[in-house]
């Protein structure tokens, strides 16, 4: 029982990071109908910026802020520099270009910084607090959860309560009509990329201190798991990203704990196939009609 609680807590803490990253995927999907395969690589680039800034200033928070800025800048560059020119007649073009961006960014990082892991310190203690003798969340886990909740709440407010959010949603759902109404859809698309890339960068930044350290491949598995999360939840659904993130995080934790680490990727595959066979658009798919 204790062990179950412990594994659940661990799964939730990691699931929150998956959910954040998946949310970033959902944001771009909604805005541009592109699954941003390059998001992991973009997030790692931003995390390198954060690493450098933290090393230079000695402040974790300056690093965090710079990761958000760097993420947004990258989002701008990738959108305006590459994605905007993607042929619109093929739904595959965006995916393929994104794969190209991954290859470019990761190899550029490898050439610039080499492959070694650069350990990143967490801003809070990572030792779990004992509750009734059971180690549950560490202060850092709590920090991660709080950040995840705050970011999601802020995004929800942005999208539902502000005119920018209204324009972002309208541009995503009906770009042509929005333009006829004077909405600068192209700018909204770029803002969507910047927002998503910043959120993705934040997720990677939160993940790295719990792992071996920063390397050009730090976000590879994060992307795979978060993509699973987004697909399980439904690419159109931010709520799906949140719920999917927790499901996948807890599932991986339980499988690793009870069946072994080796089985985890198989469990993810099985989960993915099972969900999609029952609901081909993910658990929270709005409707079948809106497809790429």
């Amino acid at each position: 029982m204790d062990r179950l609680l412990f594994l659940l807590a661990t799964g939730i803490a990691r699931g929150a990071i998956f959910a954040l990253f998946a949310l970033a995927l959902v944001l771009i999907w909604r805005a541009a109908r592109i699954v941003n395969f390059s998001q992991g690589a973009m997030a790692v680039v931003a995390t390198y910026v954060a690493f450098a800034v933290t090393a230079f200033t000695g402040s974790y928070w300056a690093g965090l802020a710079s990761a958000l800025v760097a993420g947004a800048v990258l989002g701008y560059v990738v959108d305006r520099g590459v994605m905007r020119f993607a042929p619109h007649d093929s739904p595959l073009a965006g995916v393929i270009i994104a794969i190209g961006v991954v290859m470019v960014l990761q190899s550029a990082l490898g050439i610039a910084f080499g492959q070694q892991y650069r350990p990143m310190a967490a801003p809070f203690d990572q030792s779990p607090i004992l509750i009734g003798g059971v180690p549950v969340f560490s202060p850092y886990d709590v920090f991660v959860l709080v950040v995840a909740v705050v970011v999601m709440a802020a995004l929800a407010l942005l999208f539902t309560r502000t005119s920018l959010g209204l324009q972002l949603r309208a541009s995503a759902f009906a770009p042509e009509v929005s333009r006829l109404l004077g909405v600068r859809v192209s700018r909204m698309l770029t803002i969507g990329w910047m927002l998503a890339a910043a959120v993705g960068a934040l997720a990677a930044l939160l993940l790295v201190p719990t792992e071996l350290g920063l390397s050009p491949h730090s976000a590879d598995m994060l992307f795979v798991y978060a993509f699973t999360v987004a697909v399980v939840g439904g690419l159109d659904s931010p709520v799906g990203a949140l719920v999917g993130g927790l499901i996948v995080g807890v599932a991986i934790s339980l499988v690793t704990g009870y069946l072994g680490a080796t089985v985890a990727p198989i469990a993810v595959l099985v989960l993915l196939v099972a969900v999609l066979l029952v609901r081909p658009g993910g658990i929270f798919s709005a409707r079948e009609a809106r497809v790429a």
Partner: protein
Amino acid sequence: MSVESELSGRGASAADSVRASATGMGVGTPSSAASVARASTTGRRRTRLLGTALVLTALAIGGTFLLDPYRNYQLALVAAYFCATAGLSLLIGLTGQLSLGHAALMAVGGYGYAITANALTDAGVDGVARFALAILAALGASGLVGLLLGLAAARLRGPYLAGVTLALVIALPAVTAVFSGALGGDQGLQIAYDDVPPALATIIAVEQWQAWVAIGAAAVVVTVLSGIRSGVLGLRMRAVRDDEVAARLNGVRAGRVKVFAFTVSAVAAGAGGAVLCFVTQSVSPGAYTLAFSLLLVVAVVIGGLGSMLGALLGSVVIVLLPWLIGTLTGAMDLPADLTQRLSGNLPVLVFGALLIVVTLLWPAGIRGALPARLSLRRRVSPAASSPPTPAPPTTAPEQPTQE
């Protein structure tokens, strides 16, 4: 090059042609006149296809004599990759299904080959019998996995399918670790080595023999795929890609077409994996990574989606480019540290940049940019038409077209 000939030209017309063919000769009871006409064009097409295949294979086999053993090994790799990229190109280019998991399907073929070959070796079977049975097992295994995956794929669209295939290739090492008894875990399986047949032993080296076998296998796979591609089935695949609803309304069973395409593509990939296993005498999960899967996609895209010649050119590029870059950086007198960082990374950088540039500026790939001579010949040919349209003009994603 009739490998390149296409029945139908631009994507938009594919649905229309199916409409015509569905009423005339497609799924329903065909009118006899139409079926006669079809039989004769099919016959002509087949003859020409086989002729081309034979000539090209003979050329490739002849070419092995000009190469040293290492180039012959590279040629064998190209041939093995060609099996897989040809299948993948058919899948992506014709049905619009994006698979990021073809490396896993190749691995299935490789394991099928290795397990069968080892069992046969233990049973005392060797030579051609062992090779043939092991290849059959490889094709069967990859076909089965492809069928299962295709059944799921038929229900899924674009990114969802990409997600499942991505998870498949990620799960491959886990599968081999869990079943390490049969699959050898991380180290994979090793097989006994097939020497040059005694009759040829004095003429050719083993690398050359391996290249022959690989070329032969690729020739068979690609000829079959070309046949499918230019036949009624290819037409139906295009129709499903362009407009699934329209295709359905015209009697094309979209689900079946997709499952069929996925299965065929998986078998082709499996053949590639089996050939690779034959050439290298081993198969292991580390060789079939996500990065390799993406590299196959790179090959198909930069070669030119949907085109067999493009798949071949793409395979050549992914084999030769890393070697070329390595040779170049090796020749430059760079600091050791920089050389180390460039090695491995630079080819990936170039591949990524190529992928972006080709998709943005050159959507028909290398194949589409070939000199006019080839396209001229195609224009004269009656059964051929305009170059392949890699990008199906489907109901485009809603996206603003400009600033």
